[in-house]
């Protein structure tokens, strides 16, 4: 009897690990494939997608730097994306708290306006933005892209955060007020620490979306001062002459920060995603 139950435990564990291994491979597979391909020659890449490179050297990485100003664009991406994440998180943290906790006039209208901005396709607003940015003197500047990216990120982050705040018990704030804490103190010392997983999630979503954004980075810039990594990747895909080897090397270099950020923040993200799933 005991032996039977041990066998079933072992088989359940094995099945669990096979299942996890399968999904890990699906997730990691493309990254590993891009990494291996970054060492292959043009002919090797096009001959067989799954072959092993004939040698491991850094020629493709050198070529990646030769064809495109990738270092400059990478730095631009870090500044623009970093600032837009900071701006989005700061604004959404405050705005979503008020919306989720208080009732006031025009609240529904504000929510509707924020929702409506989710429906706007980028192509529809690119020309007005282009004209406005030129008038304001922020065309082809990092500030211009920071404003656009922050504005684009706010609606989705807002809905994530309003839902998250609703999972935090009102009793905690009421206790703080009874103990004499002011509104700001309550928000800063009680609510924000509890909302950390939610804030990390929106930061991560905003980071991923803006790090990969191509359309506005192209339309609202004209030089190297504000262009970001996705534009740099296009340098390897010229007419009749793609350089996939250098492209894969560049992809590996540019995708690494996203992976690192996720690895660093993954615990908080998991907490946020599972928060409220089980109510005691």
């Amino acid at each position, binding site marked *: 009897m005991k032996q039977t139950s041990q066998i079933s435990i072992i088989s359940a564990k094995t099945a669990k690990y096979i299942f996890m291994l399968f999904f890990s491979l699906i997730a990691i597979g493309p990254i590993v494939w891009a990494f291996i391909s970054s060492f292959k020659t*043009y002919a090797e890449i*096009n*001959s067989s997608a799954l072959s092993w490179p004939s040698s491991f050297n850094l020629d493709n990485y050198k070529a990646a730097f030769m064809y495109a100003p990738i270092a400059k664009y990478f730095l631009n991406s870090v500044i623009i994306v970093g*600032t837009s994440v900071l701006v989005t998180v700061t604004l959404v943290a405050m705005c979503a708290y008020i919306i989720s906790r208080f009732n006031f006039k025009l609240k529904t209208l504000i929510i509707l306006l924020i929702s409506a901005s989710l429906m706007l396709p980028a192509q529809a607003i690119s020309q007005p933005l282009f004209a406005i940015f*030129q008038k304001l*003197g922020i065309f082809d*500047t990092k500030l211009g892209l920071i404003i656009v990216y922050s504005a684009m990120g706010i609606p989705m982050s807002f809905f994530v955060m309003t839902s998250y705040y609703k999972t935090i018990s009102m009793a905690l704030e009421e206790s703080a007020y009874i103990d004499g804490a002011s509104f700001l103190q309550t928000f800063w010392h009680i609510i924000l620490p509890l909302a950390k997983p939610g804030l990390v999630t929106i930061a991560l979503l905003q980071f991923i979306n803006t790090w990969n954004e191509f359309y506005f980075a192209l339309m609202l810039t004209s030089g190297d001062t504000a262009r970001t990594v996705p534009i740099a990747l296009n340098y390897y895909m*010229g007419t009749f002459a793609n350089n*996939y080897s250098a492209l894969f090397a560049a992809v590996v270099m540019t995708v690494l920060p996203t992976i690192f950020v996720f690895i660093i923040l993954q615990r908080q993200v998991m907490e946020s995603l599972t928060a409220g799933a089980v109510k005691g």
Partner: protein
Amino acid sequence: MKRKFVKRLMASALIGSMALGLVACSGGDNDKETSDDSGKIVLNVINYHVGTDYAADYYSYLFEEFQKTEAGKNVEFNFEEIPTTDAYNQKIKLLISSGDLPDIVFNGGNNITELAAKSGKVADLTPYFDEDPEWKALFDDTSLEFNTVDGKIYGVPVSKEISYIYYNKELFEKAGIEAPETAFASWDEFFEVCDQLKAKGITPLGMDTADSGWLTNLWMSALIGTNGEAGNEWMNTMYPTDFNTPEVEAAAEKIQTMFKEYTTADAVGGKYDPMATHFFNGEVAMFPNGPWMIPDFQEPEKAPEGFYDKVGIMLMPGNGMEMVPTPGDMVGATEEEKIEAAVAFLKFETSPENQIKALEMTGLQPVSNDLEIPDTLTESDPLMAQVLEIQNKAEVTYGQNQAYWYQNTIDTFSTELPELAYGNITPKEFCEKLTESAAKNQE
């Protein structure tokens, strides 16, 4: 208390650095300059010939050399680089509608001449052509008509697009086939050769379906364009709407057979690059394409050493060749002196010397018909010289779908090709889908 102070200090520093960052981020210099401090005319140019683009080195040479000429010594260029023609076309369309065009407007892949001309944002170049008959004589009527909208010339064509068949001499020899001097006399003869190659275990043709199905498009255009007068007229028609003609349906039937019998297994769903690699590696015997592919035959990254010598050139069966005029470069400048400078650059770009230079460096075919080809080209690049020679032997010329069809029909062609290849739809149904797609542009 101390902790609180440190926190406040950090918060202040953070806010301060953010504010400073934002200030530093703004204030980019985006004013359109007319002339710089030295009094030179500044021409704004959006250049998509950058990065790995096949003509990046040539355009870099062209801009540099122009500034050494009498007309260009007073000109400075202010470049915006946009890698890939797709990205360029996205941006240039926005700039056409916003009226903020660069001074020299390159025509990148998609034909934007009509869009730009109708927006009234590009200069009418007819007076400049009329003023300089020698320059005008460099272009034939077809090329200029292609760049004319409502009777006015807006674009300066810089090249012609042609395509034909490359074949692997070694594989032909292995199959005991003697390649024709110019072309197979008929498609029947061509398919007989395909059968002979197949019997020797050699895949006869390079084909694809993804990214607009470039290679298959060239085969299909040739099958239609060489099919009598009606087929040729159809394949020279701009924006055709009826694809259910006997010639187009017959071509679709042949394409279906070619996918089933004569090409590589990865052609369905395949892109141009892996298919080209099959040809470089001697895995397919015949490959349709234009002269811009010739530099790749000597590119060690792409083709094995000595491959260049294994390649032969022939026209499509029935002495057919795809030949389309290209949409030309335009002038978006509005001030007189900038227009003059931009036109001077376009004259320099299309000078006989630079047409030859473009041919040597990129494989771009000269737009002028009777240029004197230097003897050195025959020695340095015999294949390119052969291209120039063989194109005069073409008895039938026709267009191809990426130049003449509606964009949505080109997309339908690419997405429906796998269905045709797998036999999920008949050639007639394939043509019906193209007709339906083209009809959407008439609504």
